[in-house]
């Protein structure tokens, strides 16, 4: 555990050093403030537009952050050969990946917290009420992003940063649309397509349960059991991804 903590802290320090933490937070805040321009042109739907825009912008920004930083995290260690210094000590690949995952996760957590607190205060300032419901999305989004982060780390073990970045985007896209494919397969009388749709649906990450943005904006109650889903599905998926990454890493020649 001590080793994981040390690697995580180091990853966090590295991430903070290249100013991504600061620049993404500032960029996010500027974009959130700029959503004011939508209020006069949204023909009476200002609150709705600002809420949807804000929640989506935070998601997109953090997704970019994960993909751009996550795809390079292992690659840079291999390129700069700093990985040898890590493995010269008695650490297992799984510990390295867990450390890297937690380090980057901490960066994401801090940026997300900054942006959500700012957005919360921004809504209060512009519309005059405290919209506490956005914090449900804060928790759901954090789990979604951590899951994607684990996928990015897994892909970066055997792909170049550009390829793993593109594939990660595609996986994120599939995670949000696989339920449509499954829904569509029920209407099509083709056994092959049904099997394919089910494989895609169950194999890839599935965000159809966790995407509660609509419930937040429209103040629709959602099943509180989804919190149980959050504590099981993403965590198991993350463990699987980290474990697979370490297995693939063990097969590398330098170890």
């Amino acid at each position: 555990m001590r080793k994981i903590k040390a690697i995580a802290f180091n990853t966090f320090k590295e991430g903070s050093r290249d100013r991504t933490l600061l620049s993404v937070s500032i960029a996010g805040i500027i974009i959130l403030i700029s959503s004011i321009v939508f209020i006069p042109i949204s023909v009476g739907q200002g609150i709705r537009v600002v809420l949807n825009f804000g929640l989506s912008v935070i998601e997109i920004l953090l997704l970019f952050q994960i993909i751009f930083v996550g795809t390079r995290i292992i690659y840079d260690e291999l390129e700069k050969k700093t990985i040898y210094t890590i493995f010269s000590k008695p650490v297992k690949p799984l510990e390295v990946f867990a450390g890297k995952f937690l380090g980057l996760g901490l960066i994401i957590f801090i940026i997300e917290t900054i942006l959500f607190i700012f957005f919360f205060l921004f809504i209060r300032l512009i519309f005059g009420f405290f919209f506490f419901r956005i914090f449900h999305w804060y928790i759901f989004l954090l789990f979604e992003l951590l899951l994607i982060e684990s996928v990015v780390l897994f892909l970066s073990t055997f792909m170049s940063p550009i390829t793993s970045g593109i594939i990660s985007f595609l996986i994120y896209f599939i995670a949000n649309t696989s339920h449509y494919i499954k829904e569509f397969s029920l209407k099509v009388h083709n056994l092959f397509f049904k099997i394919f749709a089910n494989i895609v649906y169950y194999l890839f990450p599935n965000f159809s349960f966790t995407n509660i943005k609509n419930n937040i904006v429209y103040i629709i109650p959602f099943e509180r059991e989804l919190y149980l889903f959050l504590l099981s599905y993403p965590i198991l998926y993350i463990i699987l991804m980290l474990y697979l990454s370490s297995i693939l890493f063990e097969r590398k020649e330098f170890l």
Partner: protein
Amino acid sequence: MIRKIFLIFFLILFIFFIEYSFERKIPKDINTELLYFPKGENVKYIVSGFNNLLADLLWIRGAVYYGDEKIRGGKFEYLYHIYDIITSLDKRFLNGYIFGSFFINYQLKNLKLAIQLLDKGIRELPDEWVLHFYKGFMYYISYDFENAYKSFLVGSKFEKNTDRCKKFAYMSLLKEKGVQNLLYYWKEMYEKSNNIFTKEIAVEGMKECIRYAMKKYERERKKSPKSIFELLKEKYIPFIPVIENRMIRIEKGEVIW
């Protein structure tokens, strides 16, 4: 250093000049881009969880399109398409159904499409009595009192509904006599709305009510009313609408504001 700044400044100026001159030379029809927009049901497959964001951006785009077509006297041919996509992306967007149907009925004069959009809303949001109310209202302002009555009656069965549905159902039964009361409704809509397009529709609605009363007066009295005061005096309208300190009046047989 100063030379470099000048160089950058001139480059920016040059780029701006080229863009500006091309913009003037090649007129763009931004509205044709909507032609290539796929059907709403298909768009949701490609937006990857950002349905609401895209629906909002399209909502704003729809307002721009509406204003643009209005200024250049366009045909509003993509109006239904836009609101169909918005409501497919965000099925709970109540105002998308209501405003969309209003704009379609008002600008395209297409009651069938307006009702189609409201029916889609009723399917997606079966608990919203207000959609039944507006469906009845669309029929009512098109003087289809029978269908209007049916929709108001359905709306009045909902627990949450105010007495509005019942009131309009009764007005539908009165047929022509009830139309007078529409004037109150349009006035209320004008005062309560913060949407400039809705306000415009409300003014047009008030003018249409007066036109309707005028025709009725002509039919029954075999002469034209000299002024709007005559319609009020003879109880063809319940009041004279005054909007922003300007009265709706009749001049040379035309209703103007």
